[in-house]
């Protein structure tokens, strides 16, 4: 809390002192009647009562007047709160890129469940979902219609839970299964290219175990190269990391390399229940990476002095009315 015009306070104090001095001088010169035997009046209980009452109201009036002056002077000095804020990033685009081969059902369900929840809190973010097996299918494009998104995600989660084959039928019929490279490429292509969207932060959450059977058009690494020019980060979730030893060609290691080279992160999952924690971590990481410049915010905060002024003004009016009667 600080004052923009602090010099108003000494000014107000000086003015008050001057006014008091003037009033005192004037009251000294005022006509006062000398009387004798005032005990005739002052000894009366009624007089004492009236005097006590008057003294009380006078004290009240003086205190209220002083408070009123102080509060208005404070308000006139413009108390302001100076704070630095880190504007939260609300312009993210997130694409859920889910491998829907049979082994992934639990993770996918957990992931869609988390995003279904998150979608309700989103404000400005856009989210899309692509699922792939041997072919990639975009369930819904980047959208900030959160009701729609939540509906779609709920349907997807239900399908993952129930193993609803109809839902995934578009992802079959390709050349093999679990073609991760093709799926990732489709996801990365789902981001709009240019225009005002270009400066939004982009990330892909890729859930796959990276066990490819068949011949994809893109290898994982080739697909990942598409991410670099668009500045897309890939966060990989692997529920079936069975890597053993330091061989770089194992599926888990390759996935990790791809994710980290794009600036994203890699998580090996033991249990679908860990998904919410991981999503949270990803979110925080994103926020940290995309923090806006700290901004200095100076906000006037006159509420308290003005409220005090209002109250003391009311009390002063009441006291004045009582004293005038």
């Amino acid at each position, binding site marked *: 809390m600080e004052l923009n015009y602090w010099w108003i306070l000494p000014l107000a104090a000086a003015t008050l002192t001057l006014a008091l001095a003037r009033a005192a001088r004037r009251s000294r010169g005022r006509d*006062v*009647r*000398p*009387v*004798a035997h*005032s005990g005739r009046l*002052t000894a009366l209980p*009624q*007089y004492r009562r009236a*005097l006590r009452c008057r003294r009380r109201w006078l004290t009240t009036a003086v205190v209220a007047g002083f408070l009123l002056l102080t509060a208005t002077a404070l308000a006139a000095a413009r108390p302001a709160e100076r704070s630095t804020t880190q504007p939260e990033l609300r312009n993210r685009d997130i694409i859920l890129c889910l491998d829907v081969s049979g082994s992934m059902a639990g993770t996918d369900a957990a992931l869609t469940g988390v995003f279904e929840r998150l979608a309700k809190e989103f404000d400005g973010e856009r989210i899309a979902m692509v699922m792939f097996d041997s072919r990639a299918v975009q369930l819904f494009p980047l959208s900030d219609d959160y009701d729609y998104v939540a509906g779609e995600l709920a349907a997807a989660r239900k399908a993952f839970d129930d193993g609803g084959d109809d839902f995934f039928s578009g992802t079959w019929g390709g050349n093999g299964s679990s073609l991760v490279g093709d799926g990732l490429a489709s996801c990365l292509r789902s981001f709009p290219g240019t225009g005002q969207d270009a400066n939004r932060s982009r990330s892909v959450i890729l859930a796959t175990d990276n066990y490819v059977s068949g011949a994809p058009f893109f290898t994982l690494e080739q697909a990942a190269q598409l991410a670099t020019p668009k500045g897309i980060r890939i966060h990989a979730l692997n529920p079936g990391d069975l890597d053993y030893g330091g061989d770089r060609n194992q599926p888990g290691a390759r996935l990790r390399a791809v994710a980290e080279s794009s600036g994203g992160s890699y998580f090996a999952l033991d249990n679908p229940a860990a998904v919410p924690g991981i999503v949270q971590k990803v979110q925080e990481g994103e926020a940290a990476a995309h923090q806006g410049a700290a901004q200095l915010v100076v906000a006037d905060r006159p509420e308290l002095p003005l409220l005090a002024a209002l109250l003391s003004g009311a009390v002063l009016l009441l006291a004045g009315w009582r004293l005038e009667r």
Partner: protein
Amino acid sequence: MASLLQQVQSKMFIFAHRRALALLDGEYGSVFKGRSLDFDDLRPYTPGDEVRDIDWKATARHGSPLVKRYVAVRRQTVLLVADTGRNMAALAASGECKRDIAVQALGVLGYLAHRHGDVVGLVHGDAEVSRTVPPRRGEDHLERLLQEVDRSAVLDGGPSGIARQFDFVLRNFTRRMLLVVVADELLPGAATEMLLRRLQARHEVLWFTVRDAELAGPVVADAFEVADGSGIPSAIAADPRVRADYLQARTEREQRRQEFFRRLGIAEGRAGSSTEVLPELFALLERHRTRTSHRTRASHSSGRTTSPEGRQHAG
């Protein structure tokens, strides 16, 4: 400085025409009576003279009323006893300074005494000190007395305490004389009452009260007590409930004062403004006369069998 006596006289002559003044002279003359029964001569009746003093036989012979004059009537000493503490610098009921009204009363009485050829002395002061001007004759002397009172009763003077002046008179004046006490609406205590009783045994005592300012009511200015400087806010003084209580308390206080004077048998007059002084003084003298005439008549009737002189004059 304008002559105070002239001011007093001008006020006297404005408010009372010549006949009223003659009446006042007569009243004053009959204040001293019953002290000596030595017959001196006859003089024409003046309104205000006691009817009892008319010599009916001489009147019948002469054709116009004649009054018997006694030796003792001629020369008297009048001692003015005035409070000149700071109470007398406060305001009177009319809003004038009480001192001015006191000076007016003292001046009128002094002037009457002067016209009568009496000597006038002054004892005045406050609770701490008493001052005296010995009895003498003459307008200059009277003027000096008035100036002294006027000069002494100021706001930064000592606190008022008339008992001290009574004590002073008791100790310093033994010859019988007429005491005229001029004070404000004080409520005398037991000690003052004792002093007054002793004074009354020795002297004729008249009491003239200068009425104090009203304290409660729609007054415009705040007031302060001259004794201790404490203030009375006008807002409280104007409070109708306070005013009602005050009026009741004032009535009770006045009753106690009246009771006090009745108990001591002292005639009291009171004025709240300088215009009231003359009629009030007149009423005071009248009251004193009727009171003493009762007393002397009582002593006459009791002394009739034993005193041949008394019988002679009563007849």
